[in-house]
């Protein structure tokens, strides 16, 4: 219990510091846009989240959230599937390892944002390019992390499974897959940060909705009263996603004892 109070302290200090600074600036110049007051935030949030936009007839915040989460979900989902399949194949089958591992290693060195223009040229400015950017950005890491974990499975365990009558497919489904699932979840958790980065970046450059799009759109009007709530909202969503994954990992992998409950 005491620790949850301790956790709250830095946040409270930050919030108090912000509004103190905001108050000082606004009392000097009421038109200052840099550190808006709590009332301005309230008005902006109300307008974006709870009132239909006069031009589009939509609730802006929710449309943006939906668009961004759909892209993020698709990107992470597809990356996870590819990472799991290739990670197990590379980790388990030496022939595939020697063929694919160097390619994955090289691809993982390409800075994904550098090829964003190429993606826009190939896939157009629609959804595909944004999802593909996330996939290219995080899949190589997932593949390498998971294949590493699969290679760490002691050879004795695989031999033991064979002596119990397992065929290759059963070795994958009953041994490799369950052994890498905890690692998969922690790898996806680590990938969430980069995934958000690629999402916001591609939305900033070309989109018609999305949280990154909105932030960069209103930047022109120095609309800090919109930008800051959006940033806080993104942070809350990122935290919830991370929390969800951690929760799943804790619930599902009792066999690992304390090991699955990492930060």
């Amino acid at each position: 219990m005491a620790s949850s109070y301790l956790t709250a302290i830095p946040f409270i200090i930050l919030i108090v510091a912000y509004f103190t600074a905001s108050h000082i600036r606004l009392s000097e110049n009421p038109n200052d846009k840099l550190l808006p007051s709590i009332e301005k935030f309230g008005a902006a949030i109300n307008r974006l989240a709870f009132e239909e936009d006069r031009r589009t007839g939509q609730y802006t915040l929710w449309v943006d959230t939906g668009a961004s989460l759909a892209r993020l979900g698709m990107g992470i989902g597809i990356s996870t599937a590819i990472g799991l399949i290739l990670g197990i194949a590379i980790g388990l089958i030496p022939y595939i390892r020697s063929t694919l591992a160097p390619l994955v290693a090289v691809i993982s060195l390409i800075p994904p944002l550098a090829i964003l223009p190429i993606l826009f040229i190939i896939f157009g400015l629609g959804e595909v390019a944004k999802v593909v950017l996330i996939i290219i950005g995080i899949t190589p890491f997932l593949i390498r992390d998971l294949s590493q974990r699969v290679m760490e499975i002691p050879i004795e365990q695989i031999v033991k499974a064979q002596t119990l009558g397992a065929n290759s497919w059963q070795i994958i489904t009953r041994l490799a897959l369950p052994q890498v699932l905890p690692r998969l979840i922690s790898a996806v958790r680590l990938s969430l940060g980069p995934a958000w980065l690629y999402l916001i970046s591609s939305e900033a450059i070309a989109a018609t909705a999305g949280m990154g799009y909105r932030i960069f759109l209103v930047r022109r009007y120095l609309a800090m009263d919109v930008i800051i709530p959006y940033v806080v909202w993104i942070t809350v969503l990122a935290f919830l996603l991370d929390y969800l994954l951690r929760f799943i990992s804790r619930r599902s992998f009792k066999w690992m004892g304390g090991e699955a409950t990492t930060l």
Partner: protein
Amino acid sequence: MTEVSARHVSQSYGDNKVLENVNLDVGDKEFCAMFGASGCGKSTFLRILLSQEQPKGGEVFIDGEPIASEPGRDRGVVFQRYSVFSHLSVIENLILATEFDQAPMFGRLFGQKRKKAMESVEHMLEDVGLTAARNNYPMELSGGMQQRLAIAQALLRKPKILLLDEPFGALDPGTRANMHEILLKLWRDTSMTVFMVTHDLEEGFKLGTRLVVFDKTRWDPDFPNAYGATIVHDVSLDQSAESAEVKARIRDQLSQSQTRRPREEKDDEAN
């Protein structure tokens, strides 16, 4: 009927000759205890019997047929470590073999079939004293319990041959004696041929019907890896005639081979 014969088996890793011309015939229902100094190739020989690796020379036959090139259900194994599946509970470890048989696609049974599989391993749980721990995961078990689970898991498959690589090496003497009783009972109940590597002479004498000692017959202190080990003693023991003389001879052989070192090591000690 299970007869295992090794014919001129040799193994080397690069320049390191490990086994050389190993010949062995082990008959039906024998319990073959294998001794030898550390690093002389006992585990290597077991891995060859298991088809975990192929010998560089020679061949192994089971009932006159060359052994399969991959590990399979005819040969069970208990390693010193990593023998049970850490992500499965005790009971899940035990029904795994049945699941592999009955669910070729995903190796997993559900509902009534799973329940039946669990019931069918109940007697084995009892035999190895793990009934109370049935739902625990291996990391919640002691070393002795894990090894009992590993043995039970291997035996449920009813292999023709059981290979044990220092299965009790990490256990205290009391637990070890307890494990011997369990193993002997299970061995008598089934009709397996057992190969067991051990460093404990008493253990070998107590359990084995056959004692085999590995050692190098030629030895060059400048090139310790130039010659491989082979079988230097091969004694049949009927349990009654546990002769002190055989024991003494084998003990002698083992202590000799353990004092042999490469030249540099000896020099180091002299300094």
